[in-house]
């Protein structure tokens, strides 16, 4: 196929959103740098092939796949339940939300009902996950900015408490493997709610502390404001979701849109940015943490007694009827979707993860072109990705 043929779709007059082309005076004077896969700032094994004109980026190509393990193929070879622990390992910062997204898709496929108590537990664990993910994401962003780890350590101090809660609940700190089709695996242990309430009550103080350290900092503002700007039109067209999308001002939060789970019972607001730059993404993460704390404060006292698993759900011999379903939730990194096709057997015929981390990287090139090489690292950090999910 010739290039001309390849490009035919683009030339056909459709309004497309493409990255800018940067004119270079002397092509042979460009400095080509491969940032990664061995690079201190890449969040894992990820490579950006960057061409620099001085310190200005004129070309950038992301290269993926160093962590590819064909998660989808593995899942198609085992039962529905056996894929659940593997979802923990997608975005290993947020195993609870990964579990939920997968369980949600299977529940849609098999028509399972989730008991109310389980829904509450899901909301609580998901919001705790969101808090710790956003805190760590800010920490990593600051690390990228050269803050020698202080904000990251503060974030990890709080994250530690949340992970201890997860361990007390599910037995494991990060690889929770907690949710099941039609509910959750085990009920809350004794005293868990009280401990969680105490920790949630302390969270606003921690967020204040983090803001005192960072929000007004002139260096952070100088580095983050007006850098890595993303337009709302491009963001929507490129399927960018989560904080990245809302930082551009588009009001789209799957918790509000789909009313999945029981999110319509809680009052919370969706913070929106205006400029779509790194600072907006940082601030939105802070504000979303505050909103998550609000949800937690509502959900924790309301939690009812009752069963935690749909009686129709069973660990062995689970065979949904033929059909397909796409389920999605608002994971901390963006919209996490699972697409399943059942052929009536015990294994899914098709199992697909819609990874927010990967799709949010679609516009990395657009945001970085023309920027300083130091900003590339920042922009990349502000997307908030986990390579386990990008490469699957």
């Amino acid at each position: 196929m010739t290039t001309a043929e390849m490009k035919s779709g683009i030339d056909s007059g459709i309004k497309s959103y493409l990255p800018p082309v940067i004119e270079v005076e002397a092509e042979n004077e460009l400095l080509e740098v491969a940032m990664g896969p061995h690079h201190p700032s890449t969040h894992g094994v990820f490579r950006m092939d960057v061409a620099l004109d001085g310190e200005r980026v004129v070309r950038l190509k992301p290269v993926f796949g160093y962590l590819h393990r064909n998660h989808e193929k593995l899942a198609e070879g085992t039962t529905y339940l056996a894929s659940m622990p593997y979802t923990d390992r997608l975005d290993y910062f947020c195993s609870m939300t990964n579990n939920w997204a997968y369980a949600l898709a299977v529940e849609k496929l098999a028509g399972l009902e989730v008991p109310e108590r389980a829904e509450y537990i899901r909301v609580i664990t998901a919001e705790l996950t969101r808090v710790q993910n956003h805190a760590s994401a800010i920490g990593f962003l600051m690390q990228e900015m050269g803050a020698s780890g202080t904000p990251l350590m503060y974030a990890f101090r709080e994250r530690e408490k949340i992970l201890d809660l997860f361990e007390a609940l599910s037995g494991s700190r990060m690889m929770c493997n907690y949710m099941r089709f039609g509910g959750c695996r085990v009920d809350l242990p004794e005293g868990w709610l009280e401990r969680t309430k105490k920790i949630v009550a302390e969270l606003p103080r921690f967020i204040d502390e983090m803001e005192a350290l960072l929000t007004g900092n002139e260096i952070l503002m100088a580095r983050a404001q007006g850098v890595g700007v993303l337009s709302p039109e491009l963001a929507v067209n490129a399927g960018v979701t989560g904080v990245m999308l809302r930082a551009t001002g588009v009001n789209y939060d799957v918790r509000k849109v789909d009313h999945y789970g029981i999110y319509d019972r809680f009052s919370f607001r969706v913070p929106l940015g205006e400029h779509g730059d790194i600072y907006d993404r940082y601030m939105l993460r802070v504000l979303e943490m505050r909103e998550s704390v609000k949800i937690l404060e509502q959900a924790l006292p309301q939690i009812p007694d009752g069963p935690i698993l749909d009686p129709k759900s069973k660990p062995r011999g689970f065979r949904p009827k033929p059909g397909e379903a796409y389920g999605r939730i608002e994971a901390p990194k963006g919209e996490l979707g699972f697409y399943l096709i059942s052929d009536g057997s015990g294994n899914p015929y098709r199992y697909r993860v819609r990874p927010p981390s990967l799709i949010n990287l679609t516009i990395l090139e657009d945001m970085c072109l023309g920027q300083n090489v130091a900003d590339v690292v920042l922009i990349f950090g502000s997307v908030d990705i986990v390579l386990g999910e990008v490469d699957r």
Partner: protein
Amino acid sequence: MNLNAGWASTGWTSTLDQIFVLVQHRVAELFPPVLQPWVAMILGVVGIVAVFPAIFALTTVLERKGLGRMQNRLGPNRVGPYGILQPMADAIKSLTKEDIIPRSADAVVHFLAPVVLVVAIFLGYAVLPVGRNMVLMPIDAGILFFFAIGASTELSIFMAGWSSRNKYSLLGAMRAVAQMISYEVPLLLSAVVAIMMTGSLSPEAIVAAQGGFSGVLPHWYVFTPWGFAGFALFVVAALAETNRSPFDLPEGESELVAGYFTEYSGFKFALFFLGEYLGMMSIAGYGITLFLGGWGAPFSFLAFIPSWAWFFGKLFLAIFFFIWLRGTLPRLRQDQLMNFAWKFMLPMSLLNLLVAAAWRFLGEWLGAGVGAEAIRWLACAAVLGGTYVLLGRAMLRRQKIGPRSYRYAE
């Protein structure tokens, strides 16, 4: 000039104060008179070469522990009591590590770069007064000598970056050279006020000029408006000059891996590390000499404590301040750094020169007296403070930087 101003020169305190000088003399007297100056010189050199690297070792562990505490961690605590022997472990590790020279690197220059750096930095200590009568080489143009020697470290950094044949090294070296040359201007200009006031380029004379007390408070330059501004500018420029956070772009690990010493390992890397910390300490030492009264005591009633103890105490405080900044601040971007140097630091330090001159003339013009002093003080402070606020605001506005508010969707 009264070197002994405010100093109770009696008995054991004076002996303790001069103990190192006395030891040097006693040892030198054991040799024939022809050799005596040489022996004394060698003893001084040995002292510097022994003491400052020891402080460097201590600093590395203090830095890690201090950063740890700021981040709610413990820091190194496994080697020796409280991890105090950590630098020994680091030294053994760096000595036993394989020394790698990239195949395409220029081996000779690659080897020379860290050596040149350490030698140049050590030369700077030659004229640093670390205590009363404790200067290795008392020359009249000591400050000039220090800045001249300090400027030559850029050479070694570029040698390292260029000879490694690595893109990150080269970018890091170019950043470092650009940054150091830019910040040398405000560094020098901010130091000039102290020289103007003293009327001498000799570090000892500058320290002596800051001796003496009004009541219990000393006559340090930092307690005058121009001195404070000069000191603040000096600190910022010194941070940039020594590649410390928030100006650590040349080795910004998130962008350039390790900057100009990316391709260094083992002992050569340790030499670079040593050079950096020695550079930081020497520039802190000159900051103390120029603005913080050198080895002078901060209060008249504390003058019995030996002068060298004061100097090293101040040095550790300065180091702690550097660590504190490192634990708090993210780093700037190259263009912002340059903007800051040329559009903020330079005008401010030039204005400071004018204010310092005005201070001098106002002093002569208004004469003595508390009222006159207060008028002089307030006028200078207002000019400097007002300019600082206006210039800062203009800078933020020009770059469209400021706090934001956010809207919510229900």
